[in-house]
């Protein structure tokens, strides 16, 4: 099971994420971002959205993925629960994300954007690792 830890930053928030596969990394990164947004949260698979993205490389793809979910949260109040990947390559991704739309969710920390600051996605010792910082 993938896991994430939050990172200290002088003014914002970051996280390190680990996953056995790219799919698990991306899913765990999504959960990490939502934990920053909402604190501890649970949610069901009630609604779904299709996500299709093309990036320059796998780091860019992760940034685009998280920014897409941030957009869905801000505009649809979509809270991520799980993802099913039809494709999770290094430059393209096709997935169905499931969760709930939560009108009265109270935001713990508002996220403005996912940043390129020290953005890292790489395979290390047989597992996938990512580091990403958010402008809050």
């Amino acid at each position: 099971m993938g896991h994430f830890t939050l990172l200290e930053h002088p003014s914002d928030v970051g996280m390190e994420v680990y996953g056995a596969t790219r799919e698990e990394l991306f899913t765990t990164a999504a959960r990490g971002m939502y934990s920053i947004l909402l604190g501890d949260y649970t949610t069901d698979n009630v609604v779904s959205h299709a996500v299709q993205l093309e990036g320059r490389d796998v780091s860019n793809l992760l940034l685009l993925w998280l920014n897409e979910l941030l957009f869905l949260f801000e505009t649809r109040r979509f809270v991520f629960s799980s993802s099913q990947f039809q494709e999770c390559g290094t430059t393209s991704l096709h997935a169905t994300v499931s969760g709930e739309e939560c009108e009265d969710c109270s935001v713990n920390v508002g996220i403005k954007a996912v940043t390129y600051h020290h953005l890292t996605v790489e395979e290390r010792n047989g597992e996938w690792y990512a580091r990403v910082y958010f402008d809050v």
Partner: protein
Amino acid sequence: MLVQIAPYRYRVPKDFRKGMKIEGLIFASDELLAAIERDETIQQVANVATLPGMLGRSLAMPDAHQGYGFAIGGVAAADLEHGVVSAGGVGFDINCGVRLLASDCTLDDVQPKLETLVRELFRAIPCGTGRSGRLTIPPAQLDDVLAEGALWAIKNGFGDENDLAHIEEHGQMKSASPSAVSKRAKERGLSQLGTLGSGNHFAEIQVVTDVYDENVAKIFGLRKDQICILIHSGSRGLGHQVCTDYLETMNNAMPKYHIDVVDRQLACVPIQSPEGKAYLAAMAAAANFAFANRQMMTHWIREVWNTVVGKGSLRLVYDVAHNIAKYESHGIGKQKKDVLVHRKGATRAFPAHTDGVPEDYLSVGHPVLVPGSMGTASYVLVGTENAMKETFGSACHGAGRAMSRHAAKKNESAEKLVAELRAKGIIVQGASKSGLVEEKPEAYKNVESVVDVMHNAAIATKVVRLTPLGVIKG
């Protein structure tokens, strides 16, 4: 190694890192420099100096701290023909800025009603962390907001035309093009029109406690013991998305222009390129969204004021951006050149008799608004000729963070913080407990130290000091 070249001025030499085309210059005291040296600020000042077409020096104000690409507190000017524009040089919160309103009332008039005033302001000003604000407009109207800014708000009943003269750009950047703003940025913005935002955004009831320059204060309409209201807010999700969108556009376009950057947050394109022009047009539209927001919140604040205080009115002293890129004319060496000034966490500070200063302030320069952190003082400064010579007419924007959000939360609770501030006579009401704690006064540098550097370096001099009485946070 930094070299002190004059009081409060530390040069970052061109050999600090490979590829620097200009030097850097940091304005700081010894104490603030020690804090600046603890994070990546100086590296970021040096990185900005590697961008094509940068002129003069890459600057950092005394409240500088590490940002994304540019440091927060960073200022850099690019040659219009050969230079680049960088979305990271403005930041995600386009036209994050400050607005100061002045009343006809004193502390004695307002003190008995303070609790009610804070409560009613908190009710009246949507923080926007929920799905929507107070106002819903049809999507088709959003383009009018993006084109007209504060003027749109006034045309729709929020405030009056007299407000416009005291807003930077008269509250409307005419270079805005709503069509340069993506559909998804508009979607993010539509539900957040007229909202305050969270994080370090706030509205604050303040009292003028010190007047340092009687003449300038009189021209600004400020006096001791006067009650004022300060708003700190930006372009919300719309601006954040514009920056996100154009960071991608710029990162994808850079190879075409043979530009390589040391940090993808510094992604940039030639100002004169289609991508550069599109970004600047979208940035201006997002700036107008922020001007409209602050105008709408001003209207709601005035409504509450009339109901709760019922005495006098709230006059707009000034509204100024601190995340923006502006076409300006500045001395570079012995020549005057048209440049694009990036201000990221830095405030314009134009002195007397400078284009862009409101007519009734022309004899002294426009107010430079420097909010402190929650529970600490704010300042009004005024720019000087030295600012025009040394900082592209720029000054600091606030106190700058000194502590991470995680560290701020250690051994602290919102209840304890609110009680501590109340004991000092400051009433706080916030939408998020976590947000309150992260914004506690100790999380920020000492604003007095920051402002003293600007004053002692003769970049922007002190006019008045204001202390908080009530704080509303998103």
